[in-house]
């Protein structure tokens, strides 16, 4: 056969250039993905390498030392963070799930749509602004900071996260299940509480865990809602409490290298908690999707 007859196959035309460009894009994309993973490894690696040396039983179980003294720990910050996040979760999770129930089970689209939109806007409000809001709402009238004020801010930050993920999983619950319940004459509220919610439980837990992970590291609103606290182990939500994010923030701005080491150690505790929560949340999500056949 003459080459002429194979012109389409052998005449490469602009193909060389096109293939070279394609290769360049492929290499660029792969590099970008590698870069992202490398950055993650460097950040988490730095936290781990620098934090692990200062991490000890003593560090975890001793309250922060007096200003200028070393040898303290973060037990008060761990407890304070736990209290604030727990109060926030108790407020935000039920309300968030209720909002989701309203938009998916009760509200007509003409109301559900705007509510969703408001949740998205709320999710986009910078957390420092939420802090200012709660400052004006609680700290100004009361005249002092409190862990409760911080919890309220964290709850407002959690609310749209919980509500939006809950909406997504509730819409995944098969309509046939609800119809079957209605056909049996079971009231709407029983159907919702006994059938819809349990079916979607895995997804609801996922959304809640992700929201908790998100606010556990939240720092901005705490700066002026719960940052002036007393010495030692405090637990009363009516007064300001220590927290891990504030501990890291303060230590990171200090010039002392001991403070830096302590900041890394606290960061290691926080990052381990947040990443573990994320992994657990993902596991729940995968299981729940499988259960609903989505």
């Amino acid at each position, binding site marked *: *056969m003459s080459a*002429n*007859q*194979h012109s*389409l*196959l*052998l005449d490469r035309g*602009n*193909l060389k250039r096109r293939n070279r460009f394609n290769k360049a894009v492929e290499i660029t994309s792969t590099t970008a993905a590698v870069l992202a993973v490398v950055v993650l490894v460097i950040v988490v690696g730095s936290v781990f390498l620098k934090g692990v040396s200062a991490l000890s039983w003593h560090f975890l179980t001793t309250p922060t030392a007096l200003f200028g003294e070393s040898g303290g720990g973060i037990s008060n910050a761990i407890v304070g963070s736990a209290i604030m996040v727990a109060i926030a979760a108790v407020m935000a999770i039920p309300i968030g799930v209720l909002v989701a129930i309203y938009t998916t089970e009760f509200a007509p689209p003409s109301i559900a749509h705007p509510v969703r939109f408001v949740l998205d806007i709320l999710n986009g409000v910078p957390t420092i602004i939420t802090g200012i809001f709660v400052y004006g709402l609680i700290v100004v009238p009361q005249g002092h900071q409190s862990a409760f004020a911080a919890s309220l801010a964290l709850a407002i930050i959690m609310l749209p996260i919980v509500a939006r993920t809950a909406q997504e999983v509730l819409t995944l619950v098969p309509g046939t299940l609800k119809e079957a319940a209605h056909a049996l004459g079971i009231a709407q509220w029983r159907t919702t509480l006994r059938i819809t919610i349990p079916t979607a439980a895995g997804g609801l837990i996922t959304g809640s865990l992700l929201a908790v992970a998100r606010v556990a590291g939240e720092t901005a609103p705490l700066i002026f809602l719960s940052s002036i606290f007393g010495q030692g182990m405090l637990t009363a939500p009516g007064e300001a409490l220590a927290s891990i994010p504030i501990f890291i923030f303060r230590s990171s701005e200090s010039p002392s290298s001991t403070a830096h080491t302590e900041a890394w150690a606290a960061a290691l505790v926080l990052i381990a908690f947040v990443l573990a929560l994320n992994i657990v949340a993902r596991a729940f999500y995968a299981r729940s999707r499988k259960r609903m056949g989505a």
Partner: protein
Amino acid sequence: MDVSKDTTESAAMTESSPDPQANPQTGSGFAGPSMAVAGSAGQGSVKRNRGEGTVELMGLNAYYGSTHAVRGVDLGFAADKVTAIIGPSGCGKSTMVRCINRMHEEIDGARAEGQVLLDGLDLYDSRIDIVAVRRAVGMVFQKPNPFPTMSVFDNAVSGLRLTGVSRGELDDRGREALVAAGLWEEVKDRLKAPGVGLSGGQQQRLCIARALAVEPEVLLMDEPCSALDPVATLKIEELIGELKQRVTIVIVTHNMQQAARVADTTVFMLDGELVEVGPTEKLFTTPDDDRTEQYVTGKFG
């Protein structure tokens, strides 16, 4: 099933084709070089100016992971002819066709072995670029799939744009492709409208125009009418009759009547193996193999 009537109709539709039964095709013996037949009225007068467009499969095997989907197929497709491939679902007919333009290997874990010769040149040869293979061997899919973000015209020239054709030439060749696909009269006033706004049958002909625009030597059609209504199906079948003068056509179909209407040669496959090849009329009336007979008479599948 009244097969002979159907074949007569198809012969009437494709009156310009030479003797439809000229090619007993097993192995390598093809009829001589095809004659460049002028297109029928209104279809332009594109002649083959490159290779002939004969395709030969030699010892073709295709796999999905550990599944052996095509088993040692030897088969030839003559230029200027329509070859239909029939067989029950899962018999490997689509997979075999997708090996001809090397689309099979786009699927994760899929691979092919053996040779696919286009005018004697192996498409799996390391010197041949996969992109060039797709230019030489066009494809039309089961579901009409015009690009939703493009206008009718942009869809028609979407393949051409990749090859670096000049803007002036683009207009002519886009129009020419739409004419060849029998779509020009219907869309000439809305070339800028979205391609997905057309009816299903028009969308499929737009996809045919898109494939024809790059002037391939072979056109693969993977159940092109399975998503269309009978009227749209008829239009596509008429079009196939007209197009075989410009391209070698290989059509996969689950519809035996369709094979009988459009194909010069029909291939019957079963469980990844080639069972029988023959002139369409013979295969449907006096097949050599018992399994073919059982299938075409509706005893299984």
